């Protein structure tokens, strides 16, 4: 087996808040091989953005990050010097953010900002950087690329800005792209278009990607692996085919209420919604975090929860099959 490109073990993120410590992410594990796509799904506030920012080393100063292991291509990220980390960021791993409208600097032309991404990492001249910027703008489907270089962000629509952000993330030909809900802020009509573009480019350039999305159709089509996040934990992870065919954790099944199948799920179908409230993550958190909303919760759910593993597919529940049988889901 080849060494994974990204390997995360027991990642924890704590945020000091007025009423104590918010345990926003609590001991999550995942890994990713070169060229693979991992989709992280989960409802708002479950810690998806924090996790991706933690990988990039872009968390705010107040947030405390701890991990047993967090390696990129074999090098530990948590103990890396600021300078080494800067070389990775934008060079070998880059990120596309949720907010295209505000993620570009209003004071500089998009040409400047695109070229900066390359010039910071590669020993090339401005002419070469310019050529690369034009090449990538064309790749992300922007017409009249050359004349766009002199434009400022405010002259571009949200969709165009996100295309520019994608081009910027690709400037150095990174090995890993983290795309945090790259289309949520965009007009519904162009969401699918931009996502498809991103996915095609990732395939073409053979990059690994962590894609955070709410669009189950996209997950079904592009994910090699799926990680289901709930209230700061990965309640279920595994190969995409397994997760769709045999979702075990009750939360995952809630999300996939209509049991979408790869290729059959309609594009744009949203995650299912589950009634109930998410518990507070301030102070000690013990037992299963889903028990306030779970139909199968029992007293034992307050204690430590066993992990069930079958190959690469793993989930955490007191019930060995997460009460799958009770729902009569066809295997």
């Amino acid at each position, binding site marked *: 087996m080849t060494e994974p490109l990204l390997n995360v073990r027991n990642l924890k993120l704590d945020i000091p808040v007025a009423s104590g410590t918010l345990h926003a992410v609590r001991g999550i594990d995942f890994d990713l091989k070169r060229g693979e796509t991992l989709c992280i799904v989960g409802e708002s506030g479950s810690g998806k953005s924090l996790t991706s920012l933690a990988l*990039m080393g872009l968390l705010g100063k107040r947030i405390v990050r701890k991990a047993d292991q967090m390696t990129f291509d074999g090098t530990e990220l948590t103990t890396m010097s600021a300078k080494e980390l*800067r070389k990775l960021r934008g060079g070998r791993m*880059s990120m596309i953010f949720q907010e295209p409208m*505000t993620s570009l*600097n*209003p004071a500089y032309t998009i040409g400047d900002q695109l070229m900066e991404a390359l010039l*910071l990492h590669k020993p090339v001249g401005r002419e070469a950087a310019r050529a690369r910027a034009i090449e990538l703008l064309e790749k992300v489907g922007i017409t009249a690329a050359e004349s766009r270089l002199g434009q*400022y962000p*405010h002259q571009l629509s949200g969709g165009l800005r996100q295309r520019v952000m994608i081009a910027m993330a690709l400037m150095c030909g990174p090995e890993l792209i983290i795309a945090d809900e790259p289309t949520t802020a965009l007009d519904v009509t162009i969401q699918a278009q931009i996502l498809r573009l991103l996915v095609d480019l990732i395939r073409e350039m053979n990059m690994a990607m962590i894609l955070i999305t709410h669009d189950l159709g996209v997950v079904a089509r592009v994910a090699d692996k799926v990680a289901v996040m709930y209230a700061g934990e990965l309640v279920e992870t595994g190969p995409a085919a397994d997760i769709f065919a045999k979702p075990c954790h009750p939360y995952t099944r809630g999300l996939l209420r209509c049991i979408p199948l790869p290729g059959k799920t309609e594009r744009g179908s949203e995650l299912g919604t589950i009634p109930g409230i998410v518990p507070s993550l301030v102070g000690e958190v013990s037992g299963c975090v889903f028990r306030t909303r779970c139909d199968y919760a029992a007293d034992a759910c307050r204690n430590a929860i066993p992990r069930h593993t079958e190959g690469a597919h793993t989930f955490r529940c007191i019930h060995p099959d997460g009460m799958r049988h009770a729902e009569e889901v066809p295997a």
Partner: protein
Amino acid sequence: MLQFILKRLMLAAIVALTVSFISFSLMFLSGDPAAALAGETASGEDIEAIRTLYGFDRPMLVQYWEWLGSALTGDLGQSYYFKLPVASLIADRLGVTMTLGLCGITFALLTAVPLGVAAAIRPNSFIDRLSLFMSVAGQAMPSFWFGLILIVVFSIKFGMLPPSGASTWKHFIMPTIVLGYYAMPAIMRLTRAGMLDVLSSDYIRTARAKGASEVRVLFKHGLRNAIIPVVSLAAVQMGFMLGGSIVVESIFALHGAGFLAWESIGRNDLPTVQALILVFAMFYIVFTFLADVLNAWLDPRMRSS
């Protein structure tokens, strides 16, 4: 950009024209100019004679038009007190005021902007508290009092700096500090607030995600955006300093235009006061215009609006 400059230039011209008219009207608002000119002992006939001689009996707009014409050619009338052309009188004094104003704003910017940036990088740190203390003190302390303290310490106690006059650069040190210190608090608070706001913005995160160094993030991506409102503020303060240096000029006996204004008001020297108001207002307009252009250069969004 050119279009933007032309638009602003036109706007500045309109404002200048309005201001000149107001400044001209002052002469009429402040009483009968003929009577003022004739003196207290003059008879009614004398006043009438002067009125016709100076043309005060003609319609106001006609007089304004004539006054504007001569003002544009550099003729601002005769000082009642000095019996000299006001234009040359002001030109003589303007050098001191301009020097003081430029030194003052430079001093203010050079101290306030770095302090504001430092305070924003580390909010609630020692440097943040120090700068807050300085700005509160700056706002609370009257200029004349601060000036006197400096004179007592540096001129009288240590004999390091001359207390009054304008003959060497040393004469300008204390006035610069007093005048600049007055402008500092606002610039510092605005820089701090702007930097704090900008540093928490998404594009700063993007810059970090690209692998930009911290210095590059702070200055190229951060300060460049945070400084935009500071430019406008500094321009307003610069205009204010030129006209408002009266107190500082009096403390340090710098005989600049501010001091002249103060004297002329006391002497009822209307043409001089009128011309000074006009000159100060023009400077104000010019600085605001320059700030607008600088802002447009810094902020591409402004160019298109």
